[in-house]
């Protein structure tokens, strides 16, 4: 039997995606795991692998189209099946509800206790009556599931269903449009049809959650001839950056610590390393800094941490994010266990990640999970800057350019090389003295670069 397939969730924060390219065409046979399309999410270009067996009867989304999570993208079934009804349904349905997570929210308010009194009943039932029973037979309401199988229930009916262990899917709604109301749940609950207070009930509740209202996206207008500006629609990545950075800057109490360090020993060390490596690769200043950051986090592990709502989470592993600029934004691929890796392998890994980031080939797991981030604008001539934290991490280090500057050596002013780094800290996790201690460890490592090789 043919069915509609909606756009799957391809990243934890995805709300919509652009269907970049179909890998299959109508009439192709597919098996679970087959790649059917490439989808641009807020994070990266992701593979959309089908989980069903059959023939692609209809592709509903055009290449380049933005599709809400869960909205119909294709119809799959047996060869030759008539899909016109499903196509019509898909048209009416879009954008479809996102697949709801199968868990119920904890109840915020206590619900009324089940009451022993005779209750209004959906179906007439002989019951002992202590006082005149209202003529409460409901007008028969067709229990028509609206919106393609969505379960309608009043909030009270839902909380009561959980309390009484009633599976709402087994209840016939007597309210308008088939809405399940209190008396319907009580009728089942008191008839011994109660399911155990199980996940089923929770699932039913989750299904019954009102669908997320699709917010109409106001498309920026293309510049017309009497305006002095051009509105460019934001890419998913741009939208995501805008949302994340706004949230971080607004919600995280930032403060900044700055130090200028003597870069000459590190530059000399790098020259020696590159001489050793020969044509087997190159080590950049940034690679050394990634390593120094990782080791500094080992020395001062309290900075390898994140604020969670009621406390501080200290990470046991050190994953360093490296911000990489792209034409349409930036992405932060992660060097995992950077403290464990040699400088050469860090250099190779960063180069590979950066290249693939630019080609938008990174996988979701390669851009998530960092515990501290490095952002470097030194190669663009920026001497110093402050970076916005990358939540939930508690620290980010902004690297400036290595410049010729007067330094004092043995009481004499000489021309030296300096580098200014600025640490942004989440004050909920890192206090000034702690951040200063971390920065001291980092400076010590960079100024004594041999220790990076240990």
């Amino acid at each position, binding site marked *: 039997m043919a069915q509609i397939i909606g756009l799957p969730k391809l990243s934890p924060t995805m709300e919509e995606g652009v269907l970049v390219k179909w890998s299959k065409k109508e009439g192709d046979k597919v098996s679970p795991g087959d790649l059917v399309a490439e989808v641009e999410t807020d994070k990266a270009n992701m593979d959309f692998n089908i989980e069903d067996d059959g023939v692609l009867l209809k592709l509903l989304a055009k290449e380049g189209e933005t599709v809400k999570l869960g909205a119909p993208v294709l119809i799959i079934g047996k060869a030759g099946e008539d899909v016109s009804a499903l196509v019509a349904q898909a048209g009416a349905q879009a954008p479809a509800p996102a697949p709801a997570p199968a868990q119920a929210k904890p109840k*915020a*308010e206590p619900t009324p206790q089940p*009451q022993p009194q005779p209750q*209004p009943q959906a179906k007439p039932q002989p019951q002992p009556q202590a006082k*005149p*029973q*209202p003529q409460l037979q409901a007008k028969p309401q067709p229990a028509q599931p609206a919106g393609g199988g969505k379960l309608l229930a009043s909030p*009270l009916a*839902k909380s009561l269903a959980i309390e009484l262990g009633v599976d709402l899917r087994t209840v016939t709604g007597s309210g308008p449009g088939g809405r399940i*109301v209190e008396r319907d749940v009580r009728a089942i609950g008191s008839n011994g049809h109660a399911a155990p207070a199980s996940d089923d009930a929770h699932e039913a509740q989750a299904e019954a959650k009102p669908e997320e209202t699709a917010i109409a996206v106001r498309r920026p207008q293309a510049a017309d001839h009497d305006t002095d500006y051009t509105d460019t629609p934001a890419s998913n990545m741009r939208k995501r950056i805008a949302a994340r950075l706004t949230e971080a800057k607004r919600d995280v109490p930032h403060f900044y610590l700055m130090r200028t360090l003597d870069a000459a020993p590190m530059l000399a060390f790098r020259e020696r390393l590159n001489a050793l490596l020969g044509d087997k690769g190159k080590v950049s200043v940034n690679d050394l800094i990634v390593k120094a950051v990782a080791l500094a986090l080992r020395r001062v592990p309290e900075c390898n941490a994140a604020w969670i709502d009621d406390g501080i989470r200290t990470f046991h592993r050190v994953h360093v994010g490296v911000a990489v600029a792209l034409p349409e934004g930036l992405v932060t691929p992660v060097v995992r266990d950077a403290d464990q890796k040699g400088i050469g392998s860090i250099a190779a890994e960063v180069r590979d990640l950066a290249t693939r980031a630019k080609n938008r080939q990174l996988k979701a797991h390669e851009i998530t999970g960092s515990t501290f981030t490095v952002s470097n604008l030194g190669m663009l001539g920026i001497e110093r800057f402050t970076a916005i934290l990358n939540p939930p991490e508690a620290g980010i280090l902004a690297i400036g350019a290595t410049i010729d500057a007067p330094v004092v050596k043995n009481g004499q002013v000489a021309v030296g090389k300096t580098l200014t780094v600025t640490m942004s800290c989440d004050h909920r996790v890192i206090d000034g003295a702690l951040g200063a201690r971390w920065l001291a460890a980092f400076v010590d490592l960079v100024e004594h670069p041999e220790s990076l090789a240990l």
Partner: protein
Amino acid sequence: MSVISYREALGQAMREEMERDANVFIMGEEVGHYNGAYKVTQGMLQRFSERRVIDAPIAEMGFAGIGIGAAMVGLRPIIEFMTFNFSLVAIDQIVNNAAKIYQMSAGQFNVPIVFRGPGGPAVQVAAQHSQSLESFYAHVPGLKVVMPSTAYDAKGLLKTAIRDDNPVVFIEGETLYNTTWEVPEVEDHLIPLGVADVKREGKDVTLIAWSKMVWTCLEAAKALAEQGIECEVVDPRTLRPLDVDTLAASVQKTGRCVIVEVGWPVAGFGAEVAYQIQKRCMDALDAPIERVTSDDVPMPYAKNLEDEVQPQVKDVVAAVRRVLYLE
């Protein structure tokens, strides 16, 4: 306890407060020699003299403002509007001056004043003399808005309003003056502003109403009890501050709510109550909150039409049956 009328309860409250505090005086049209257009101030001129019972000419903006100026420097005026319909020509004084002086002066001056008089529909006096203006005043920060439904509440709330350090808009039910209720014969029968009162207990549905509509709801509750439906009738008594806790507790218990007001539907105060209830009681609701209001028209004169416009017992009964999914 003695059973007295709503009118007498208001008169008692003013007389007691004027005996108690020499700064309290009453000013308004026909409050003195005429003994009050609705006889609320009957006998007060004889008792307190022209110095404290002041007949004002027809100049609501003028004497409302005089009350405010006097209150700023320490007196406690009671300004009577012959009906609240006439407060509209004084609304600049109430909204722009009385409500704002405490804030604009950063707390240096406060305005302890009561604007009182009958409001809500009367009987066959047509569009300009038959309207409910509480939603206008309840909208304004800096004002308190009181709407008693019984003689008991009228006396206790008016005494508190006179002692309050803020401007209080005290709207009496124009058709309630002859209603009676038991009122305690104590020296200081005071009811705090911002405390709702459960006028009838029930478990199936909460009816929220104030002033005249409390009586309509009590009648409807009686009719519904005969059908086996137990209504809880809750009277907020003051719209600002609003005792959301008591209203919400009732709806938490019953799971259904009908708000009955005699004002117009659009942006009526019941809409605010409905918002507060859904916010607090979302998970307890078994049906959408219902509102019963007057029709969205200026009040007609003819008796049959006038009745048609206003919420009647049958309208409340029907709304209750709707939230119980019985219609």
